[in-house]
Structure formats: structure tokens, C-alpha cells
């Protein structure tokens, strides 16, 4: 008999077991069915209220969470730091506690500081979902990436996945490494030396600095964006030089002699890490990732909502 998730919050993939991930995938299968019906809504969470608290810019993640919550019939309130009292000097705990006094059961938190979600889960009485904490983790993105790989290739175990680009500043990379390894895949990171964290090999991943070598090795390439907003110094001479070394083009793909799956968590910088031709090709599953994102977030919210105190 299944007892639900082993955790009360989704703070990072690090805190999930393989069984948790399998349960989220199984539940997401059902929700994927739901969002493809004529009526795409279920009443499961009609007595649950969720606050989406975004202390950092986001388009796709915020929309995806909002849509997932609405399709579950939850009541939602949205908060973004730009237009709030945070600019008047209020602390994170005070801000969240004020919102919780309005009887909110769950908080979806995006914050620029690593560990913000973990900190909040210890300070306030609500289920917390980490929607990205600085350069640390972005668990729902990693879940939807792994789910998309499973959907495309039938299995995650035994597959070789290369994560290419700005590994140093990417929360997607770290969450993906944890998720893929827990599901039995092999992971490689690829990028310029300056954008690969020094001791990342200790996580059990391969490190490669040559894009072509990485692509020859992998079944799936997850192309990451250069996170300019997090870079306070120059990590490479110019964007043009980065593109010449690490930009994925049709020519490189065609030269591989095999079909690999191309993923991108978005937002895409077309012509930098990936050309339009590749991003729009049949090998790319970028838009499937977005669709699966809604199903994965519905599954996560649904399974965590079961942990809210009884009615």
C-alpha cells in the first residue's frame, strides 16, 4: 500500500526518494490525461488555498504553477516582490506569515537566495514548494525534465544525459543531476571551465569541456542558457566566442550519426546556446517539456496537499 510522499515539502530533489519520484510520475500520468480532456479541471483541491510568492522574475514557471493550481480547483493568490512591502524592509518570514494569516495552506516560493525554501519550511506552518531558490535547486523543472525523457525514450535508467552550458549558476543543473541519478541515468556536465563548479565531479557526474565529445556520448542533451543576471564577472571573453564553442547547431547534430533528444528548460536565447533550426526541429522536445510541466506540478501539489492537516 502506498503511503504518499516521504516528505511534507518539496524543497529539492535531494530530499526525495526514488519511490517519491516514481509516485509523482505515476500521478502525473493521470493528470496528463485530465489536461487533455474536453473539461480540463478536477475538483480535488477546492478547499485548499495556495500562495504563489515570487521574489524573482519568472514567466513560464509562474504560469505553469498557476495553471496547475487552477486545474486542481485550488484558490490562489499571487505575490511578486516588486509591488510589495519587501521594498519597505519587511523580512521573508514576516511577509509569508502575514499571508498565512489569511489561511493559506501551501506556498510556492521562488527566491534569489539559495536555501530560502528550506528556511521557510522551518519557520512557517504551511507546505512549501521550492520553485527555484537562487543557484541551488529547481525541483519541479528537474522532475518535468526527467518525466519528458521517460516519455520520449520509455525509460530514464541507463540513459546518458549531457547538461550543457552555465552549470555554475544553474539550479536546473543541480536538480537535474540529483533527479537523473536517483532514476539510474548517467549524467555529464559540459561547458567552459569557468562555468563548471570546481568539485562537481564529487556528485558522480562526468565533466567534459568539448561539446562534440559530450554529444557523441549522450542520448539526451539538455541545453542551458547563460545566466547573465547572476554573473558579476566575465566568465568567458564574449557571447560570440561562447556560441562558437558551445552553441548547438544543425550541422553539429547532423554530424553525430545518431539521433539525440534535445531539451531546453527555457527561456531560450536563440542563436546563443541553440540555433532556431535545432530548437524547432523534431529532435527537440522543448514544448513537450512545457506541457509536462503542468502535469508534474499538478501531481506535486496534489500529493503535498494530502499532507495538509485534516479538514
Amino acid at each position, binding site marked *: *500500500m*502506498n*503511503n*504518499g510522499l516521504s516528505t511534507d515539502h518539496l524543497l529539492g530533489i535531494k530530499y526525495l526518494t526514488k519511490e517519491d519520484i516514481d*509516485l509523482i510520475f*505515476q*500521478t502525473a*500520468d*493521470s493528470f496528463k*490525461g*485530465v489536461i487533455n*480532456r*474536453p*473539461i*480540463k*479541471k*478536477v*475538483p*480535488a*483541491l477546492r*478547499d485548499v488555498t495556495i500562495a504563489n510568492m515570487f521574489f524573482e522574475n519568472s514567466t513560464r514557471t509562474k504560469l505553469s504553477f498557476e495553471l496547475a493550481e487552477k486545474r*486542481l480547483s485550488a484558490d490562489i493568490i499571487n505575490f511578486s516582490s516588486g509591488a510589495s512591502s519587501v521594498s519597505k524592509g519587511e523580512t521573508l518570514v514576516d511577509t509569508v506569515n502575514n499571508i498565512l494569516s489569511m489561511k493559506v495552506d501551501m506556498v510556492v516560493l521562488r527566491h534569489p537566495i539559495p536555501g530560502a525554501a528550506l528556511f521557510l519550511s522551518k519557520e512557517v506552518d504551511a507546505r512549501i514548494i521550492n520553485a527555484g531558490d537562487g543557484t541551488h535547486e529547481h525541483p519541479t523543472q528537474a522532475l518535468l525534465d526527467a518525466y519528458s525523457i521517460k516519455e520520449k525514450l520509455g525509460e530514464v535508467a541507463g540513459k546518458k544525459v549531457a547538461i550543457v552550458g552555465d552549470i555554475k549558476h544553474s539550479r536546473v543543473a543541480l536538480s537535474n543531476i540529483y533527479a537523473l541519478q536517483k532514476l539510474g541515468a548517467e549524467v555529464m556536465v559540459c561547458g567552459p571551465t569557468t562555468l563548471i563548479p570546481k568539485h562537481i565531479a564529487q556528485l558522480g557526474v562526468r565533466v567534459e569541456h568539448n561539446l562534440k565529445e559530450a554529444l557523441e556520448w549522450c542520448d539526451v542533451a539538455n541545453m542551458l542558457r547563460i545566466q547573465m543576471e547572476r554573473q558579476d564577472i566575465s566568465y568567458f571573453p564574449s557571447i560570440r566566442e561562447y556560441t562558437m564553442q558551445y552553441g548547438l547547431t544543425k550541422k553539429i547534430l547532423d554530424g553525430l550519426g545518431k539521433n539525440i533528444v534535445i531539451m531546453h528548460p527555457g527561456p531560450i536565447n536563440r542563436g546563443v546556446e541553440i540555433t532556431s533550426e535545432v530548437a524547432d526541429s523534431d529532435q527537440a522536445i522543448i514544448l513537450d517539456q512545457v506541457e509536462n510541466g503542468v502535469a508534474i506540478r499538478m501531481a506535486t501539489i*496534489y*500529493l503535498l*496537499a*494530502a499532507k*495538509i492537516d*485534516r*479538514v
Partner: protein
Amino acid sequence: MQSFRMANEIILNSKQFELTINRLCYQLIENHNDFSNSAIIGLQPRGIYLANRLQNVIRKKAGIEVQTGGLDITFFRDDFRRTDRPLIPSATNMDFVVEGKKVILVDDVLYTGRTVRAGLDATMTFGRPSSIELMALIDRRFSRNLPIEPNYVGKSVDTIESERVSVTWLEVEGEDKVILYTPENE
């Protein structure tokens, strides 16, 4: 703590089981003729076995292929966050829309009626059916929580709350039978 021994009584043996299924199929054929605009929907997890059996028997007796689906009602239940058991969904296999169709919802045991209430809501997300009928292989009558009554009944039984009715299927458990378990003080 009291210990209980379960006494059991066979309500339907395999022969009676077969006769009952056959009768239910003839009743369906009588009301739905060629089933051209009808669909049988089994409620997950165990109503699908009845749905599949009906489909097979109708094919054998009348040579008609009835559209049949399996519907999971988990997300429509009214006891989310009210039970110790987590509500984990089963698969939904509905490769048709129910818009304008005459739907027959089927389940193995009808008890409080709450599953059927959820099933009605779940069915409507696939479109607006022209009508919905309800079939239960076993009707535990006089124990309804909601005003829901079946159109087709295999067998009615009078039970009390502590009793349990279990339907086993040839395809799944190796034998067609229905058993009533009654707890007995030792």
C-alpha cells in the same frame, strides 16, 4: 482490543455468477439495441472487470462491439484529506468522448453511492452524455449515503456496516464468485 473472526458466505458461486452476468447483458441489449450510441464505463479500480466482461459477453451473444472504457474517479472523490489512506489514482482509459452518448456506468459493488457520485462528475468531464444509467453487480441496499439508485442490479444483499462484500473475477483471481464477510466475536 477485541479480536474478530470473519465468517464468510458465498452469495454467488461461479454458475450463478455467469447466469447473473448473462441476464444483465440481455437487459442491456433490450434497452440499447445495437449500442451504436451507447458506451459502457467501468469505475476504477474494480468496475473495469465488470465492464470488460459485459463487453465480451455482448460480443459473444449478439456480435456487437460495445464501446467500453475505464474511468478513474480519484480526483473527484469527496474524502480527500479526510482519510488516512492517500488517494492514489488508477489509469483512465477513455478513447472516446461521451458527448450525446447513452452511458452505462458499471461497478462491482454499490454501497454508499459516493463513488458513483464522483463517477458522474468524472464522466461529465468527457462531454455531456444524453443519459447515464447505473449498473451494480452487487447492490448493498439500504446503506446509501446519497440519493443514488441503480438501473440494473445483479443481486441485492442486505448488509450491515461491519460486513464486507468481495467480488473476485476469473480473469484476475482465477474464480468468479461473490463472498460476504461477516465479523464474528470470538
